[in-house]
């Protein structure tokens, strides 16, 4: 049990900087005036604990340990006294800790920003929207001319994320656990058949089954068909609905 407790604790750090911030916080140290000897000792204690627990210590932690030791030894060195430089020495004297402090402060900023993001994430999770209504019956039958494919992989991923979100709400209230593997090739053929009439289909409509693995396979099938230029994927403007049509002469999916 105890073992587990430790494990969780160490896993909770996002890296050596995070661990250092934790130590600074716990020891109530001024971040601008870190007692290097003390913090190094504490830091090494953690590393040793990790070792005892036979955890893999990420190399970054060891690099930081070395950095701390280097700073500690630099601070032990007698200050360089050179009379000719005395005039500057007050301002120019370099604290070996400066660079580390700077890194810690920079990291801390983003660590705090991440907390803010977490709140925003939770907040946003409380509101729901619906997919656009199907207004296609009003659409004028204007088959858009072949424009350049300007759909990027990121548009596809965004569309995919949206789809997954929608599927979540449509999920049946009870589910059975089944394992059904659909080969991508089969979905590719099905998609080509679906588009066979030369009709333009909404990206969304290619996903009739609200099942995660089915959705994933279909998505991969669409990407593969795009790559093989068997289908044409269009988007009239950024973030608008994505439409899919079969390329001419691509009524067969072959060569695999």
């Amino acid at each position, binding site marked *: 049990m105890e073992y587990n407790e430790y494990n969780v604790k160490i896993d909770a750090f996002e890296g*050596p900087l995070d661990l250092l911030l934790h130590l600074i916080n716990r020891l109530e140290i001024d971040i601008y005036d870190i007692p290097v000897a003390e913090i190094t000792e504490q830091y090494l204690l953690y590393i040793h604990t990790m070792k005892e627990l036979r955890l893999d210590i990420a190399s970054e932690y060891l690099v930081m340990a070395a950095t701390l030791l280097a700073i500690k030894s630099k601070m032990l060195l007698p200050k360089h006294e050179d009379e000719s430089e005395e005039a500057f020495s007050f301002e120019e004297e370099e604290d070996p800790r400066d660079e580390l402090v700077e890194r810690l402060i920079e990291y801390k900023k983003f660590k705090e920003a991440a907390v803010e*993001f*977490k709140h925003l994430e939770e907040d946003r999770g409380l*509101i729901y*929207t*619906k997919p*656009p209504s199907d207004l296609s019956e009003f659409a004028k039958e204007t088959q858009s001319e072949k424009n350049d494919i300007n759909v990027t992989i990121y548009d596809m991923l965004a569309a995919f994320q949206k789809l997954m979100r929608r599927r979540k709400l449509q999920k049946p209230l009870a589910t059975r656990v089944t394992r059904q593997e659909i080969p991508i090739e089969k979905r590719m053929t099905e998609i080509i058949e679906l588009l066979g009439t030369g009709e333009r289909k909404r990206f969304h409509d290619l996903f009739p089954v609200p099942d995660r693995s089915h959705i994933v396979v279909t998505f991969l099938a669409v990407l593969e068909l795009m790559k093989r230029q068997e289908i044409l994927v269009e988007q009239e403007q950024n973030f608008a609905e994505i439409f899919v049509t079969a390329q001419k002469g691509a009524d067969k999916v072959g060569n695999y």
Partner: protein
Amino acid sequence: MEIINWKGILESVLFAAGDEGLSIKQIATVLEVEELRVQEIIHELQLDYEKDANRGIMLVQIAGVFQLATKKEHALYLKRLVESPGTAHLSQAALETLAIIAYKQPITRVEIEEIRGVKTERPLQTLASRALIKEVGRAEGAGRAYLYGTTKEFLDYFGLKTIEELPPLPEKIDDEEVQDEADLFFEKFNEL
């Protein structure tokens, strides 16, 4: 003069648009009114929803577009509609990485790793696969590393209107506050 129920029309149009949302410009085109007038109508409808606690919908601006969304206080009931309400939240590593990208974009993986002090390949993959970030170009110099930036999905995911609406990044750690506390402590200490 004919009375046109703009608020009702806007409501219908926004309902149909769903989570694609509509920009002020798009609404102006559809309603055939000035953009300034659109803003007024939006504001009026927003107020209607807000004032009436019996309405379950609100009009929000997310990722640059206006859309209808359910009110936060009803989330509990909506969650009961689905089997597993727990959406996959982002890990601490992913959130940190995303924060760095959001404020410093465009930025390379190496630069992110310098700030975090750890390898960041996995969080980057997670973020890209969730369409929250994307490659926005290549850095100058050796290796021509990929530069990462945030996407529209990112704004949507955090309910932000625009990228400018990011909460301000603390420029300096508020060390003074800590200092004050310490001073107070010592004052008390001296009094004893």
